[in-house]
């Protein structure tokens, strides 16, 4: 019988926790899709840990929670029967069947099967957080974006605000849910469930600075090996969302994976608006509150 304390010490993930009062570094995910085997361990480990409901039946940990969103039919999207990120899917593995360029050796091109585990991007400039009127969405000490379930009242503003279509309202529950980057685990120095399970370390977790360095090295290595189509997605702090806390190495255009090619924080112009119209703030507030109240009564 091992006490839990020992387990945490053995985990070795606590190094970033630092001294009390000190800001820990920003944490994130680097998902290297070039080594993803599409096993979906991330989807399951995420659901197991976070007690996320299943489409298929009672889960045991959360017996009253049944997502019940759809029939249990094949989606026909290759081996993907999950479909998309949503309130009860915080990791989603996309399967893309394509062909490589035709070449003299392969006149019809070669079959290619791309797999990629998608997740909330934990944007630097997070529109969901910007628009949240209740303070349910916060930025944690790890610079991750977290929905506080004990605050969220299900207004749904965050849903259209997300440039990636990640966050969503859970039917039957009414509140918004998305990846928490396992805030409970990271608080205790543990690796998030998906990264912990990932067999091939396609999902890597750690301080974002380190992940970016690692990703740059991996990209250079792949390109050096002639994988010229390899690229990083969400790594650039100067992009439309200020860079993602969860970023990716892709082997094709982002659109191929169902990712927006040039995501922009939907509230980008909001700060300037505020500065310009500081005196008119009351009017704006009234408008927003009006719509908030309307939202709640829906």
């Amino acid at each position, binding site marked *: *019988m*091992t*006490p*839990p304390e*020992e*387990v945490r010490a*053995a*985990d*070795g993930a606590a190094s970033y926790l630092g001294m009390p009062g000190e800001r820990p570094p920003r944490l994130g995910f680097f998902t290297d899709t070039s080594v993803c085997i599409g*096993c*979906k*361990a991330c*989807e*399951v*480990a995420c659901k*197991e*840990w976070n007690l996320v409901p299943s489409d298929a*039946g*009672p*889960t*045991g*940990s959360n*017996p009253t929670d049944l997502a019940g969103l759809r029939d249990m039919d094949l989606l026909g999207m290759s081996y993907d029967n999950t479909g998309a990120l949503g309130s009860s899917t915080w990791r989603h593995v996309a399967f893309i069947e394509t062909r490589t360029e035709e070449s003299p050796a392969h006149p019809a091109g070669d079959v290619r099967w791309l797999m990629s585990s998608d997740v909330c991007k934990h944007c*630097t*400039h997070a529109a969901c*957080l*910007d*628009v*949240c*009127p*209740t*303070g349910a*969405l*916060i*930025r*944690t*000490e790890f*610079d991750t974006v977290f929905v*506080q*379930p*004990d*605050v969220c009242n299900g207004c749904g503003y965050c849903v259209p605000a997300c440039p990636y279509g990640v966050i969503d309202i859970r039917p039957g529950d009414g509140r918004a849910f998305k990846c928490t980057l*396992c*805030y*409970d*685990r990271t*608080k*205790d120095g*543990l690796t998030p*469930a998906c990264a*912990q*399970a*990932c*067999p091939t370390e396609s999902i890597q977790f750690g301080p974002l600075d380190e992940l970016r360095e690692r990703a740059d090295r991996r990209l250079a290595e792949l390109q050096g090996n002639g994988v010229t189509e390899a690229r990083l997605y969400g790594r650039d702090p100067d992009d439309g969302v200020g860079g993602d806390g969860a970023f990716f190495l892709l082997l094709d255009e982002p659109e191929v994976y169902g990712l927006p090619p040039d995501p922009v924080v939907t*509230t980008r112009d909001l*700060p300037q608006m*505020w500065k310009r119209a500081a005196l008119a703030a009351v009017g704006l*507030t*009234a408008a927003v*509150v009006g719509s908030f109240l309307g939202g709640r009564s829906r």
Partner: protein
Amino acid sequence: MGVREFIELWPVVRQLRGSDPTARGDAARSAGSEHLRPRIAEADRVVRSICPYCAVGCGQRVFVKDEKVIQIEGDPDSPISLGKLCPKGAASQQYVSRPDRVTTVRYRRPGGTEWEELDLATAMEMIADRVLDTRRRTWQDTDENGQPLRRTMGIAHLGGATLDNEENYLIKKLYTALGAIQVENQARL
């Protein structure tokens, strides 16, 4: 809550006031968030196990609280799995704890159209009756040439590839002593 107080809480407002430009706002943190802990931190004990699915043999750590399994995850100490699990291994907590697991004996009598309930001890006695009766009826002492057989061809067994070595050992030992030889498992399938 008045409109003004409500606005005060709005993260955008706090951000714009300049003290918390990216809303790493500790002030917005709820009590739930403040006290959030991983549930395995509350575990009474952690038990070392091995995944029951394929034959790779990944290490598992089983977290127990109040005599219930609250989480199963990969064992980072294992040189075989280094803490990883596949989707099946990752689902094994649900496999053992799901509410629709059938955990009581069910009995179907000959020609019966529904399951019936049956006490475990009674079931064990009834199964022993049938093993002994079938063995008695189907016993073969010798073949047609008088060569010894000392067996029954009336009792067959299938299973073992997800069973423990200790279990398989008792299975083979008991059947062999009973003279039952049609003992097989998935290793052929």
